[in-house]
């Protein structure tokens, strides 16, 4: 049996070569008529206003932090799922299941806390709030 990662590396190469191949075919086929107004960023036909790269509230900053926590949690859950069946045979249902119940329980408490503190709620910007109350 050959090393599977060599084959996966080969598919990675093919996966890059297919887009590059399409790009080069397109480069041969397509016309090039450069013109400045074509390159203006598209804002529904209006003259573009202002810069795109400004600071604004992306709304899910707290959610992104929460994601990191849960992502690491899934990494810790995966080894348990793999050995779970064998563990039940070896030590019985309780000792195999209860530690993970406690682990997920702690996370659930954390999620409930974040939920209560409004971390997963969509926040109105101060200006939108003001417009709403006026």
């Amino acid at each position, binding site marked *: 049996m050959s090393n599977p990662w060599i084959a*996966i590396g*080969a598919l990675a190469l093919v996966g890059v070569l297919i*887009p590059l191949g399409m790009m080069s075919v397109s480069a041969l086929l397509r016309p090039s008529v450069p013109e400045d107004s074509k390159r203006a960023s598209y804002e529904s036909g209006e003259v573009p206003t202002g810069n795109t790269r400004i600071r604004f509230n992306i709304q899910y900053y707290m959610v992104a932090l929460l*994601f990191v926590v849960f992502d690491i949690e*899934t990494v810790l859950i995966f080894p348990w799922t793999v050995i779970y069946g064998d563990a039940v045979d070896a030590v019985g249902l309780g000792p195999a299941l209860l530690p993970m119940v406690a682990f997920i329980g702690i996370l659930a408490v954390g999620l409930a806390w974040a939920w209560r503190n409004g971390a997963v709620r969509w926040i109105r910007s101060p200006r939108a709030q003001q417009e709403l109350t006026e």
Partner: protein
Amino acid sequence: MIVPGAMSLTDRFLELLGLDPSTAGPLLVFGVSILAAGLVGSFVLLNTAFAGPYAKRKITASFTDRISVNRIGPAGIGTIVVDSVRLLSKELIIPEDADRPAYDLAPIVLAGSALLAFAVIPMGSGIQLADPEIGLAYVFAIASIASLGLLMAGYASNNKYSFLGGLRAVAQNIAYEIPLVLTGASVVIFAGTLQLGNVTTPDTIVGAQQATLFTIGSISIPSWFGFINPFAFALFMAANLAEVGRNPFDIPEAPTEIVAGYQTEYSSVYFVLFYLGEFIHIFLGGAIIATLFLGGPAGPVLPGIVWFTIKIWGVFLLTQWARSAVPRVRIDQLIQIGWKGMLVLSLANLLLTAVIVGVIA
């Protein structure tokens, strides 16, 4: 516990050429693997070419009571060739102040990463490029690279619609990634391994689903995980819709709100690559669902590859059905459904599966 996997496609090719897979040098294996990878890639691209410019239009048209493409070739099938040439020969317009390396790399990242995840999927009839032990973790890891491509596209375009689309794509992906992966983990509890394997290897995810669950008369129902835990199956289907960005979770594109989202400024071949990557991703979602919940390429009478194609097209039809029939959720609703609904349900599902498997075992 290390399970000897089923024979991979690379090994089959090596044997066809009269070489011994266990002694062949890495460079030779790589060369032969490129042939095998080309076959897998062609299969995926063939499905995508049929789905993207043709089947999608026909399906949407029948939902909205129209005829759609019918001019070129029988039933308009020639549209596939015509549209490919037409799109590839469009002028490429790069917006001013675009962040150049990222702007050009984003389409490659999206299309390439979606294709790369197909490496470990068992497609039946012995077509499985590789079968590493950590197969399922690999699939989830590679499939989520796509959101990086979307963010790169959104940021690099220097367009406000693109930027919003890219940020929305990230919000959506982080909200639905965890439920998706946790529901996938519940299949691992059942199978006891991350290796995807094949129909002939019982100690793998696909192999474990081939055992008989129960029999009705002379028909034996296999223990596909979708039959054992339909709740996990439904949860995974919903999270998958969000993962591939189809209704009701198509807010990263949301044509009525932000033009075309992250791909607003992409034209010509770059647009083709985005479109392609999106469809490869839908088929990848179908392939993961088929592998985890529908017994992989297993099925009666017909060969495995045919069943695999039927299953991924089934999931594709479902996404198109949702696209035509289900209204879009708002972004705040999306975050709430993801974090308050799906996440809690997926944790409950994980423990439920653990109890079911523990009691049966």
